[in-house]
């Protein structure tokens, strides 16, 4: 019934102790198939956004994974970005581009849509917007999309989560396009966690 709960899971207990009353921090993940958790056996356990939520976010964080499979940036702008208006997230984690690459979205359209996405999120209250680029595993065209992603980050004051040189491996999955394997999800999670921690340590 619930897509996020459809696979088996081991107990995912956070390693934090929780004070009963404190202010929550909301984190929103935006992305495509990989961010939704396609290709891993247990998305609540092994998909990168849930690893970050479980291991690296504050105990009082609330987390929503807004990702949808086959989501291009333009698609995310209409189906995922509205969540920011409702949730007013402190942190937005974005990993998009792979489905634009597959759909061969023209770079200018991609750049424009991505800029609008980040600006919309910012206008809707997102305080920190972390954007990951594409690993080389997605092919030679990834570099062109990465140039666009980097330019959007610079223009919109986003924070880059660099995956371009990360050893991400795409594994074939049943009936789907190849998706990052579980080890790659851990790499992606670690990269996002590092960026989240870096931003928090630089806060007053």
């Amino acid at each position, binding site marked *: 019934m619930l*897509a996020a709960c459809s696979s088996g899971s081991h107990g995912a*207990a956070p390693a934090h102790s929780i004070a*009963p009353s404190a202010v929550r921090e909301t984190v929103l993940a935006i992305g495509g198939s990989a961010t939704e958790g396609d290709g891993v056996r247990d998305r609540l356990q092994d998909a990168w956004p849930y690893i970050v939520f479980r291991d690296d976010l504050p105990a009082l964080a609330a987390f929503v994974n807004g990702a949808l499979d086959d989501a291009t940036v333009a698609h995310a702008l209409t189906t995922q970005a509205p969540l920011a208006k409702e949730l007013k997230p402190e942190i937005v984690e974005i990993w998009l581009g792979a489905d634009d690459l597959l759909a061969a979205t023209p770079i200018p359209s991609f750049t424009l849509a991505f800029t609008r996405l980040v600006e919309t999120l910012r206008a809707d209250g997102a305080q920190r917007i972390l954007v990951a680029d594409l690993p080389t595993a997605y092919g030679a065209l990834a570099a062109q999309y990465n140039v666009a992603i980097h330019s959007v980050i610079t223009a919109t004051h986003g924070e880059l989560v660099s995956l371009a040189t990360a050893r991400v491996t795409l594994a074939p999955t049943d009936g789907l396009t190849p998706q990052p394997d579980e080890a790659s999800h851990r790499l992606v999670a670690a990269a996002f966690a590092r960026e989240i921690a870096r931003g928090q340590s630089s806060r007053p």
Partner: protein
Amino acid sequence: MTWRDAITLARRSVGRRGGRAVLTVLAVALGSALLSSLLIASGAAKQRVLDQVTAGGPLSGIKVDAAAPTPVALDTDNPRPGPPRRIDDAALQKISQLRDVTSVLPIIATPMVVVPPPVLPAAAHSSHQDNGPIFDSAIGVDLSRVNQLPIAIVAGRLPDPGSQTEIAVTVDFLQRIGVTNTNAKAIVGTQVTMGAPRLFNSGIGRRSRVRWTHAQIVGVVSQDAGDGLYVVSLELARAARAWSTAGAPIDALGPSPSQYSTLFVVAHGLNNVTGVRAEINTVGYSTSAPESLITQVQRYVHVVELVLAGIGLIGLAIAALGISNAMLAAIRERRREIGVLKAVGAADRDVRRIFLVEAGTLGFAGGTIGAATGLLVARSLAAVVNGYLASQDLQTVHLGVPIALLAAVVVGATVLALAAGTLPAIRAARMPARQAIGDE
């Protein structure tokens, strides 16, 4: 002769016949112990049965469903609810103002996914545990007034009022993750991930998004406030429901469109439950309350209490006969003393007073020892019974110290002893001095 003289003479008499006095006190103590232990045990059993029926809530509790009543709604304890009808703050207010309503507590049931904690092997009753996410309902209640709700703590504690990060799980949840009730404490303090689901329509059909948070299991409860595996604060349930209801309907397990899924109304006494139910029926809501069941249980338990009290009273009556017998024997042995007392000017009432003080002292001492022994016996019995209940994964019996009952047993034993000593005292008082001394 003053009371002090009478007490001194009675004490001296008891001291002179120590063996007989001890035996008499023991007889009274045995009777009192039997009576008090039987009444304490039956009282605890009655409470246990009523707790089972009401899940620890008030006897006069009434559940108001978010549904209209059917024409036969008042004929049974648990009627079939009619068509859905929303309960909002206005309805809550209206019901609060009904006659004989003591309190009205709102309850919010909302769907919740919980990823259970890894179970300690020692706590699990089965090697096969389902540690996958469990989709069920969370019951949000006003935790500052939980004593008015049918919620009983099995282990740990309840979440703090207003807490967004603490949950209590039910014994049914323990079964789902393969933990026995006796090991309930093993999961108290563990942390879980919980999420409020929202369904939405995407281009490829219905999908879900879950708002995840971390929470700590602070207790295990047995509850009848609503159908759900988790008990949380009203505020947490409200936030989760707000997220879930913003999406598409989630079938039967989804959040009710009603602001409150149930109201728990406490009537002013069990006798008013029927009347309050009828009034709520008139307001337009279906209600349920175990009033008939409670009345029947109370009736049956009262019969048992009468039988047990009868057995105890027979024991005390036998002890009273022992006092009477001991006092009559004492009169025969103390004729000379009675004669001397009368010869030096003691009135009949003075002699009567000495013997009544003696009887009362024996009764009081026996009653006190017996009440204390009865409490110890009842506690020993409770320990044995609790051992059995725990082995069967059932809720144990709580035995308090019924001070009023124990005081009543002591007073009762004293009064009975005085009554038993009255006839011998009268006989002693009426004995002519010449006859008393002459017989010697």
